[in-house]
């Protein structure tokens, strides 16, 4: 059995895109004392969801993730070559400091950033991305992209996250995409999907990597749209028919007679 603290932490960690503040307000109303000790859960949420924050100098935005995290709630941004501190509850930043790129692939990193700017602007109306030396394996680079669309007035919110690792020595790319959609008008409907891309060779440098990512994601999105079709045409239809086989609504007045005929449901046995 989870402790009360674990319970409220799990609420934060599974909050839908764009609704963290609503979830936190509910937790405060239900469990005020546990709500005071949510710092680790906020940190986990912000890093897992690739939350974008405004840089302290008003110098643009940066993505929070496990890949660009330093000690003491500090993160670095390779585009501006600064590090900064984050208050995970408010998602506010402070204490900027210069942070030099510590990678033999600094030029490649900058070129990948440009390439991603080009391809992402062709497919995402709004998005953020960052390229960062992978902290677990500094010989590789991690590419992160996050796009969100919040429409609470229409009761839906959504987030797209892409994560890739590029290995410059083998010129291989691997990664994954996750999409999370929440719709909650008189209900609660959630779509979650993910796709892993196995490692593949991409020759042609940063621009080719950008093009390969766009190609992989286009294919995924087409497959996802087909997946909606498969579920809608197959699974959903076999749960409840739109009309009985007879194409007529039930004649409720005759409910006692239907049984005698034994021919309901197209004559199939139960």
């Amino acid at each position, binding site marked *: 059995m989870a402790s009360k603290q674990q319970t409220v932490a799990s609420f934060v960690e599974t909050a839908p895109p764009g609704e963290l503040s609503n979830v936190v307000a509910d937790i405060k109303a239900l469990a005020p004392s546990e709500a005071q000790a949510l710092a680790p859960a906020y940190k986990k949420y912000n890093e897992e969801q690739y939350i974008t924050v405004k840089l302290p100098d008003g110098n643009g935005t940066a993505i929070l993730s496990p890949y660009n995290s330093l000690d003491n709630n500090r993160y670095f941004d390779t585009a501006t070559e600064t590090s900064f501190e984050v208050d995970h509850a408010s998602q506010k930043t402070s204490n900027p400091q210069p942070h030099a790129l510590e990678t033999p692939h600094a030029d490649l990193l900058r070129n990948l950033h440009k390439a991603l700017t080009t391809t992402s*602007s062709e497919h995402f109306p709004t998005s953020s991305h960052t390229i960062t030396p992978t902290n677990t394996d500094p010989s590789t680079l991690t590419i992160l992209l996050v796009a969100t669309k919040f429409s609470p007035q229409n009761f839906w919110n959504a987030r797209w996250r892409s994560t890739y690792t590029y290995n410059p020595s083998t010129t291989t790319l691997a990664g994954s995409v996750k999409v999370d959609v929440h719709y909650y008008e008189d209900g609660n409907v959630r779509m979650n999907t993910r796709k892993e891309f196995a490692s593949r060779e991409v020759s042609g440098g940063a621009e080719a990597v950008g093009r390969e990512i766009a190609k992989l994601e286009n294919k995924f999105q087409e497959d996802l749209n087909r*997946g909606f079709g498969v579920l809608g045409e197959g699974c959903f239809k*076999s749960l409840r028919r739109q009309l009985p086989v007879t194409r007529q609504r039930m004649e409720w007045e005759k409910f006692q007679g239907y049984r005698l005929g034994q021919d309901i449901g197209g004559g199939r046995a139960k």
Partner: protein
Amino acid sequence: MADPFDAALDLLRRLPPSKTQQNLNGIISLRPDLEEDLLSAVDVALAVKRCSKTGRDYLCCDYNRDGNSYRSPWSNAFEPPIDPDDAADLIPGGRVRRMEENLNTAVDVYRELYYEGGTSSAYLWALDDGFAGVVLFKKSTNASASAGKGGWDSIHVFEVNEAAGKRSAHYRLTSTVILDLGLSSQSVDNLDLAGNLTRQTQADLSCGFRDSEVELQHVVNIGRTVEDMETRMRNMLQEVYFGKAKDVVGDLRSIQPLSEAEKDRAAHRDVLEKMQR
């Protein structure tokens, strides 16, 4: 500060619907004082039990529950048995039980017509100026991982206020459908679409002219109201699960390059302007 009960309902409307049962248990562990209110207000996927007297399956919800026992609509007995004093209060008899038996027969026909399988149950209880009840359906499908698997639970709670003389009645219905769909294939590792929608309706309906007709007419009126609502909700679910979700993903990311989409729009505007000249 918000009312804790409202906060609990808001939270369950936001957190993953696939985990509603688990989150409900979590909220109750935080606030045991809300347990009874939450159990009657929150719909969760229905459990199936087999009636030991008749061998038929029935569905369990808060309305046929007493402690850990559930009443079978087929035998009208709680399993495991409950205290006889409680049973006298909780087991319907007379007119209400007659209508309950007929309603179960009728929704069983409906279930076979629309679900071609699955399980159904109906429960009624008396009110001061009428009666109330719930009609339940459950169906699961598990064709294959690549064709998708799914579960449908529908919960129709209604209240019937009978006018003096019982020639007509006011019917109020609150319906919830819990629909859980999943797909796992080579092209999409994992696609989960889970959730619930709730809608309400009400109507004044005639109950016939002779006393002997009234009981059966209630069953007909309830059945038809449930059929209308469920058919409407099925269309809404189709729209939200397969239309809305797809559109929202398309709003996040466009397969067609946005510069091409902009050119198409400009060309379209051009054509329209020329036509208007």
